[in-house]
């Protein structure tokens, strides 16, 4: 079920009313309803893959309990490895099997040994990369004795399958989210209203900005061979907005939906395109994944300066590979590691902590130039992320760095592009205005008269309905 669908618009109020009326009587009922609703939500896409979630839940719940009883370090490690093996095994099979098979055959062919292999027809279960990492965080934290394993199977099932963040995050830590399932939630008016506001802003980002950018970006990337450099740059910039609004829009809807049910999910994006260097960008982009890698991979790898270089490459390559089984994602990861390393090695990676122009209305010229520089580097890396394969990416880059860069960009539907430009300008202003908050609409207009504020919300909702692009799947569903 997609967040931007009529199905979800019907599903959400039904679950909401049942949750706060029938299930409100007891914690167990609340959790049980959330599990049932989450299974319906997931089964709407494909019920057969529900078994994977159930199996993953059973494995990690059992291993968690066994870890509690086990003092022998070796046996504890074996239990942890069993959880990692099962969870990453599913991920490896469904996501990476064909990639390894194809590259294996290609490597053999390169050395003259002709091999024939047929790619397996494997469907990638939606959200597998997200819930796998979430359950892994539970087992690892229990193993590290940072978290007491739960005896409450329903609460644990709700934690793994909670529909608001099941298929595309934020990837929550068990230490943060699981305790919320232990306490009966009570309806909080301000929390619910804030949730609705965040859902509205998420819908605007996804349906209006991302889906409209997608139409132009797809057209440009799919016909890149016939287009001049400036048009390709435009395509890359539009894709940058598309992917940001698509994913952060999804996260906003997920966080807002969770708030309607009394949960606080972690912030996943914090205005990353206003970053002044790449280190800041990575503290603001897909925060739940970046911090997951930091806590469960980077810090355990530890080490000296030379180890830091190795570890940075490992983190970024794994992060790229997490996104998909394609060399383009790996190159995207390597590129980001190259951007990041100079800052890390010179000790400047934590120089910029607060948001840009925290106490001013506008950035200084220096800040603006730094933002533009960081954005340019990011856009360049997105070309690899979006391209079909490496030759496609290199073709686009060579076309960009040619004399045709100085020709005027060509877009097929000038009027639609004009509308999109206006929407993008509004979006950037609104995001800039709200950069100190959790999301751009959080405190916007709260001091205005209610009728004006409601008028603004209604207008935004109408724009979502009338100016939304052709419905596109969320990009991160494929990861």
């Amino acid at each position: 079920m997609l967040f931007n669908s009529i199905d979800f618009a019907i599903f959400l109020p039904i679950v909401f009313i049942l949750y706060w009326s029938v299930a409100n009587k007891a914690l167990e009922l609340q959790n049980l309803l959330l599990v049932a609703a989450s299974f319906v939500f997931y089964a709407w896409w494909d019920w057969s893959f529900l078994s994977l979630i159930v199996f993953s839940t059973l494995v990690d719940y059992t291993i968690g309990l066994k870890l509690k009883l086990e003092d022998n370090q070796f046996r504890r490690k074996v239990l942890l490895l069993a959880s990692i093996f099962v969870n990453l095994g599913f991920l490896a099979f469904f996501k990476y099997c064909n990639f390894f098979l194809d590259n294996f055959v290609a490597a053999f062919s390169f050395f003259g040994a002709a091999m024939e292999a047929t790619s397996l027809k494997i469907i990638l279960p939606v959200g597998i990369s997200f819930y796998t990492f979430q359950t892994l965080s539970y087992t690892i934290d229990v193993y590290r004795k940072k978290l007491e394993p739960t005896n409450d199977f329903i609460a644990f099932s709700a934690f793994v399958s909670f529909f608001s963040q099941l298929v595309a995050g934020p990837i929550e830590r068990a230490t943060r989210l699981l305790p919320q399932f232990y306490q009966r939630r009570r309806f909080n008016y301000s929390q619910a209203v804030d949730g609705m506001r965040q859902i509205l802003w998420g819908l605007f980002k996804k349906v209006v900005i991302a889906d409209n950018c997608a139409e132009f970006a797809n057209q440009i990337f799919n016909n890149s061979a016939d287009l001049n450099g400036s048009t390709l740059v435009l395509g890359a910039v539009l894709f940058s907005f598309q992917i940001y609004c698509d994913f952060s829009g999804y996260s906003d809807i997920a966080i807002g939906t969770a708030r309607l049910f009394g949960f606080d999910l972690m912030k996943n994006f914090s205005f990353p395109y206003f970053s002044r260097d790449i280190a800041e960008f990575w503290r603001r982009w897909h925060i739940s994944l970046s911090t997951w890698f930091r806590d469960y991979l980077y810090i355990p790898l530890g080490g000296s300066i030379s180890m830091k270089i190795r570890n940075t490459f490992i983190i970024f390559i794994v992060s790229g590979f997490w996104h998909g089984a394609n060399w383009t994602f790996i190159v995207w990861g390597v590129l980001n590691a190259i951007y990041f390393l100079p800052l890390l090695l010179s000790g400047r990676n934590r120089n910029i902590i607060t948001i840009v122009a925290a106490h001013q209305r506008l950035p200084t010229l220096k800040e603006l130039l730094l933002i533009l520089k960081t954005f340019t580097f990011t856009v360049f890396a997105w070309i690899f992320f979006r391209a079909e394969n490496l030759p496609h990416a290199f073709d686009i880059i060579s076309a960009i760095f040619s004399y045709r860069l100085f020709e005027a960009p060509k877009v097929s539907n000038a009027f639609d592009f004009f509308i999109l430009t206006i929407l993008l300008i509004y979006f950037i202003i609104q995001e800039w205005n709200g950069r100190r908050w959790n999301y751009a609409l959080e405190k916007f207009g709260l001091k205005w008269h209610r009728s004006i504020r409601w008028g603004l919300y209604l207008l935004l909702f109408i724009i979502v309905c009338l100016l939304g692009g052709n419905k596109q799947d969320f990009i991160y569903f494929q990861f």
Partner: protein
Amino acid sequence: MILFIKKTILFLFLFIASNFIYLIILQKTDWNYKKRIDALTLDAPDNDIIVIGNSLAMDGIDTELLSQNGYQSYNLSLGGSSLRTNYIQLNEYLTLYEKKPKCVILGLGSYLNDFEKETIHPIVEYTQKDREVSFRDLPMLKFRWLFKELLKKLVSKAHREASLKYGQLRFKKQVPDNTALDHNNDFPIDRYKSAPFIYDIIDLCSDYDIELIIVEMPGLKKTRHKKRFNCMLLDEVNNNGLLLDYNNFSDCEIFDDQKDWIGDSHLNAYGAKKMTTRLLSDLQKMDVTAPQRLKCR
């Protein structure tokens, strides 16, 4: 909780009210909507010719000119409509009005149309009798794309100044045709032969003894066929469904690349006049108002 639900319901109420306002605005300003309402409420029409098709026919066939030359006509075509929609519209017209036309002209463009498309035009679907109502029928969801047309009218004088005459939508705006002729283009007769809804329209016309002429509408240079397709009857048994090709190098010589187009193979008012004059001479040769006289030029 109660307060939250009350406010949510109020918000939804305001949204639904906005939908009704949007629908009223569309009914007053959108060409397709206005035409649809017009076509359903004609006062005892006395038309000899009915034009059906999509925007190519809606813009490109001047029914006023046909009427002035002895063929009382009405242009029923709608922008973006499928052949299935054309069938529904024609069926409605024939059921609704007592006086049946003698000839139906179906204007199509094989270079632009998807002949297999099964969807019904949202405006036609919305205004059909006995339709099923669902959440998707909210005007702001159903007629989303028309909002951009409304905005175009706001910003573009040419769009504001377009007019509806005898069902034809006339634009005076001129967008040059900068495309080039393609010497490999042949007439795609198989696409016509394999389109099921064309045969449904032929059958419908035959049931009412109406002659059906199917016209491949002129398009931009890149779409034109190097050689005119010799016309043919798609239904030889009933002697109906005469297919004429006006989108070829020689027939399209009448058009001025700079002045007769409004973009994407659509003719403006000047181009439509030329196209209709050409069509008129063929209609006169065939004498379409006399029964069973269809034959090739």
